[in-house]
């Protein structure tokens, strides 16, 4: 996965979903945890990683770029 969300660290606040310029994240309807539902639309700007208050998100570069 290009965007990893730690289930242990995610506090379900939704900030990542709110701030992502490309609308990548949603909160899972059952667990409430953040998930990169539209990962293919990631621009790897890193804003989610910066703004996540619990450090739960890690953005990796797509294989074609890394």
């Amino acid at each position, binding site marked *: 996965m290009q965007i990893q969300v730690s289930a242990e660290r995610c506090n379900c606040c939704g900030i990542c979903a*709110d701030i992502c310029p490309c*609308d990548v994240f949603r909160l899972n309807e059952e667990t409430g945890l953040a998930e990169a539902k539209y990962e293919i639309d*990631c*621009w*790897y700007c*890193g804003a989610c990683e910066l703004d996540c208050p619990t450090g739960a998100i890690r953005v990796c570069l797509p294989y074609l770029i890394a």
Partner: protein
Amino acid sequence: MGESIGGVDVAIVGGGAAGCLAAISAKEAQPDAEVVIVEKASVRRGGSIACGMDAINVVVIPGISTVEDLVRAQMSAAQGILEPAVVRAVGEESFAVLKDLESWGVEFPHDQGGQYQTFRQWSARDRAAAVTSISMAGDLKAILDRELQRRGVRRIEHAPVTAIFAMEGRVTGLSALDVWKGKFITMPAKSIILAAGSGSRFGIPETGVLHAVFDCPACAGDSYSLGFRVGAQLINMECVKRYICVRYFNGPGLAPLSHGGRLVNAFGQAFLERTSNGSLELSNYMDLFSAVLKENQEGRGPVYIDTRHFSPEMIAEMERCFFTTERPTFKKFFEERGMKIGRDLIEATLSEPVLCGGHGINGLKVNTRAETNVQGLYAAGDAAANATSLMGAFVLGRIAGREAARFAQDVGPASLDSGQVQVERERIFSPLQQTEGIPPALLECKLRQTVSNYVDNPKSEPKLRTAQTHLARLRQDLARLKATDYHDAMKAMEVQAILDCADMVVAASLERKESRWGIYHYRADYPQRNDEQWRKFVVVQRNASGHLSVSTQPVIGG
């Protein structure tokens, strides 16, 4: 499901730098005005560059540079095809904007002598001291966000604007799609400011990753398409940019060069002349892109950015600039590839073709009051053709906000035409009602491949005519778009915006029968620059019958 939002005086499309400054200035001009920002993502990180910028280019700083320096430099960079009065208007307010930003908490570091820390982007023969950049620190968008809240600016987020409506040449309001709730929003508005960025998804990147683009991919040409569809005039659409980039990452490559880095070819030869103080000696910095292309075409590529002579301080400065402010994941890219600034050659190349209003000169035609030709419609930032990057976005935003608020005060309430709204609603929801069809990403891929194949340089009449044939087929395919959810419906809207941009670029490129701006508009069938006939704007506009029309207009005061 739908919602109508009434009572809006100033609706601002896009919450980037220009949109935020517009909202603040509208509220300052008319504190009681209802000012709303409608943003595709969030104001907090929305805009061309999610994580901010480390510097502002083209600033007029008393004692260092003058407004006339700026006008001369920008006119020269645009090779005469820019409205000098608009550049002058930006120059005249830029220092006041800088002071406003400073009072809100944006830091502009000072040197040991107490002067602002500035640097020259280019000191070429015909560019003046005004091409001064100023270092900037602080979380710009967080600061602007706070200022908006303080002033009671309303915001509607996660809601891309789908259309701007007008009746008898005057704006009446807009519609947006709330992508999270699947809600169609209609908003009558007395005035509208278009500030939804540039067209970063245009040609296809060599990695094949559709979002591997220079500017934020959410800026998919929405401004140009929204303006075009409501009858606004656009200029310089034939001037298609390609950036010098760190290869594969598509991240900025110019910064190390403006700080003394060298461009070398595969044989280690520096292929650009330098002045005695080490800056690049170019008649125009667009020559740099032509030079990179030439090295590659003539078998001396790949080309590299050489920073091996940088001092430890400069290396630290470059790492700060690349890895923290503009694109934090740039650090990961360097790490993954085992590269280090100051130690390794950094492979560079040209980006795919892109439309960028800020660094480029294409976009909605505005006057010194940021007005377009549609009454009540203003444009600022990358949306407007002004070529004064972030400072231009701030200042034109400031002007647009003030003017739009005044306009709104003088006109009666706005109301939307229900027929127009119904047609638009059907356009947005139809991809969601298809049982089978083409996924938006697939159509986008084919469209952007077409742009790279036929609209990129060298341009020629046969190539551009072929592009028209392909683009017409793709337009028919729009009816077959199938969206799986509201996020996907937004992607379908974006594909249509990119297609509108492609149509405009092809038409404008066919019209300008000369070559200008280096590789930005090189016609193989008209390889020479022809100032006598072509020192004028090519204007594209949708006419009353819904067709694209092309005309030319003189450059006033050029």
